[in-house]
């Protein structure tokens, strides 16, 4: 294939806006891709990277703005249209059929035919040619996808993209699930692709990879474009600063008078399973300990391990000094733990049930329904009137739904409260309420472990910040640290 000159712009996205249910996620973002370049897309969780990628992929349609391929305006109503136009995307969740072969997956939906029957020979030959072209001649097209490793499956997605003559390939966190040797393989593939003039949009958090592979990098923050620079003209420090640098606001309530750090209520020593290793964590009464880190760094896995989902296989967990074996959510609750899960709709609420039913759920499940008299009081202190107690939760706003989840757990009078992304997707007023509640709980002596991707929130609320990276603890920072320090630990910038 002829190598296109690097100045050849193949994609121009201009003024892309996107909102979901009234919440603006992208504010007029511009992005352009040149043939044969690796263009990194960076930003913290929630900055809008994945939304932008999905707009390009045709999964979402932009509310405003334009997309031009080779100077021609395009609008993709369906991901297949994007693919057929030469824009392919490799998502973190692969769109493959595990029981079918590589060739069958690559040509799914457009199997070549001869005399009315599927021409399996041609399908296999074409797939083999694509694999050979990438230097992967040890993978045969008749292998079932489920026998492949993650790296192998990723290759199938790339081959699929190439079979559509992709000129642009977006990759979402491609190395997130890969082992080190497999990352080398990916580097090689990326190199081969760029030599062929394919433009690669590379979404990743890993600074090392960005600096190894990318030609240019675009930084998004809070849904808006911060800057697009050539990789040679920026340092990793500057890059991190672009991603997170914000003026500190006094949005967060101060600590209540009389809040003192008490005993250690939750201790994890040497905790590990197949996603975590060497987790040493202490959460004290009256303190808010934040658990920060990038997506996939293992924070939610710690919360889940405490609740009996994918338990710790190594190490010890102690509650109030007593070692405990937390084999189920029930045992965790009995031991005094509470977990406000990350995804309230999928894991925290029974949407067709009433507010009252949801609020009583843990009491009903674990404590035989005792203690429900407290609930109306708790609901009203959260400014959620119990007159609406019969209302089905699915009619509530995100903020009110989160209040129901909080009420549910507050009713159990927990000693340790784990909050996973407690303010995700809720309005400002509700956020304030949640922060105030956390301060009150702290003053009351509850030990709080807050998992959050919002650095502002981490800095504004935490007494201590523990940063995770790749399943291990990368470091600990005191209150008053700045966002850059947290991000630096989270991305491993110092070891880059």
């Amino acid at each position, binding site marked *: 294939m002829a190598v296109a000159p690097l100045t050849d712009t193949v994609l121009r996205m201009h003024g892309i806006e996107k909102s979901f249910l009234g919440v603006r996620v992208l504010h007029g973002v511009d992005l352009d891709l040149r043939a044969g370049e690796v263009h990194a897309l960076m930003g913290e969780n929630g900055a809008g990277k994945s939304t932008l990628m999905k707009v390009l992929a045709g999964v979402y349609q932009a509310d405003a703005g334009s997309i031009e391929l080779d100077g021609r305006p395009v609008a993709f109503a369906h991901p297949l249209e994007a693919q057929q136009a030469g824009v392919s995307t490799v998502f973190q969740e692969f769109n493959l059929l595990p029981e079918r072969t590589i060739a069958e997956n690559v040509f799914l939906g*457009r199997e070549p035919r001869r005399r009315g029957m*599927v021409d399996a020979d041609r399908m296999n030959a074409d797939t083999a040619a694509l694999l050979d072209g990438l230097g992967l001649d*040890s993978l045969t097209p008749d292998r079932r996808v489920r026998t492949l490793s993650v790296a*192998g499956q990723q290759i199938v997605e790339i081959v699929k993209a190439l079979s559509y003559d992709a000129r642009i390939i977006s990759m979402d966190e491609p190395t997130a699930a890969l082992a080190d040797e497999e990352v080398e393989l990916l580097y090689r593939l990326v190199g081969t692709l760029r030599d062929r003039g394919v433009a690669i949009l590379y979404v990743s958090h890993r600074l090392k990879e960005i600096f190894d592979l990318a030609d240019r990098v675009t930084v998004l923050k809070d849904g808006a474009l911060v800057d697009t620079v050539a990789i040679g003209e920026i340092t990793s420090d500057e890059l991190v600063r672009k991603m997170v640098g914000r003026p500190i606001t006094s949005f967060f309530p101060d600590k209540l008078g009389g809040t003192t750090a008490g005993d250690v209520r939750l201790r994890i020593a040497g905790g590990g399973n197949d996603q975590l290793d060497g987790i040493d964590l202490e959460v004290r009464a009256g303190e808010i300990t934040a658990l920060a880190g990038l997506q996939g760094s293992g924070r939610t896995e710690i919360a889940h391990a405490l609740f009996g989902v994918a338990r710790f296989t190594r190490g010890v967990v102690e509650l109030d000094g007593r070692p405990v074996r937390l084999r189920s959510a029930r045992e965790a609750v009995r031991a005094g733990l509470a977990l406000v899960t990350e995804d309230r709709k999928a894991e925290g609420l029974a949407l067709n049930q009433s507010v009252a039913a949801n609020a009583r759920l843990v009491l009903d499940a674990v404590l035989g329904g005792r203690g429900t008299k407290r609930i109306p009081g708790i609901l009203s202190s959260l400014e959620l009137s119990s007159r609406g107690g019969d209302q089905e939760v699915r009619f509530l706003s995100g903020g009110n739904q989160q209040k129901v989840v909080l009420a549910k757990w507050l009713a159990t009078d927990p000693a340790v409260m784990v909050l996973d992304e407690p303010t995700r997707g809720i309005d400002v007023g509700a956020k304030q309420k949640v922060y105030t509640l956390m301060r009150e709980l702290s003053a009351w002596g509850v030990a709080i472990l807050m998992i959050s991707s919002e650095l502002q929130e981490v800095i504004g609320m935490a007494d201590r910040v523990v940063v995770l990276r790749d399943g291990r603890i990368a470091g600990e920072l005191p209150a008053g640290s700045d966002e850059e320090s947290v991000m630096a630990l989270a991305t491993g910038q110092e070891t880059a």
Partner: protein
Amino acid sequence: MTATTTRPRLSRRLGSTELVYAALLGVLAIGAVLVAVRGGNLFGTANLVDMLTRSSLLGFVALGQTFVILCGSLDLSVGYVMALCSLIGATTMAGDPAKVPLGIAAVLVVAAGIGLLNGLIVSVLKVNPFIATLGMGLVIKGYLDTTYKGPAGEVPSSFQQFGYSRIGFLPVSTAVMLVAVVLGILYLRRTRTGYHMFAVGGSAEVARLSGIRTGRVVVMAHVLCAVAAGVAGLLVAARFGTGSALVYSSGYDLDSIAAVVLGGTLLMGGRGGIAGTLGGVLILAVLDTVFNILQVDPFFKDVLRGVVIIAAVAIYARRQIDRKASRPRFGNGPPPEPAPDPPVPVGQGADR
């Protein structure tokens, strides 16, 4: 080469189709011994014919059932379709050899129509396939019980050949069934729709993302299933010489599912095939014959059927693979097997 995984376990290396035929050989062996102890010969002509005859009827039904199960759907109306078609065939033919083609055509049209309805109710109205086909079966049952008070119609002796004649020890009906099986295998392995049936069953979402019209594929599968049941109905008519509604109580719906699942097709869809189903059919036919020779209580067969279905689903349904592969970061050992999904979602139509 880092793109490969650890060595697959032995059972996977063998492939489920091979396993089924190995099981068939095992059943034949044990059956032969038990029969020999009684002084008989399992492989004597009479018994061979018996086994093959039993397999022909179920073979047609299970063949059709394979298509719908592969798509992630199900058809519980097949017994009623069989009964209805046997009656339609026999009454249309009305003893007149010249009307045989008409009778066959009538059956095919009616069966295809029922299959079309089933497919549309599942794919367009999004009714759970169990409910949709169960309901359809009940509708047909009501019609049959009201319209026909007993056997009806007459099958001319020329068509009865289909039911009775043999080539050596191979019944013609079984031969036709085997031809149908081969055609079915070719359909699944060579046509686009066949490929797409695996895709829709594997993941309707992935199929849709690739531009496949999942509704059409499901409808096609239901049509093929109903037509196969219709042919089975013709066979019933040919054997009895007349049409009969009784056959809907013979449990062919569950037997066909048992044969398909025994044959290694996942109840959730997406993997399997007709070759395996044939193995399952043969196993059930051999078991039937052996029980018959040993004069085992027929009700015991019902108990066994129930247990076999549950056991087969419990064993086979554990092989469910998660789409997002996750590998362990720490610790040694193979990647963890994710928890199995329920085989067919209740109340959510053909896709999930």
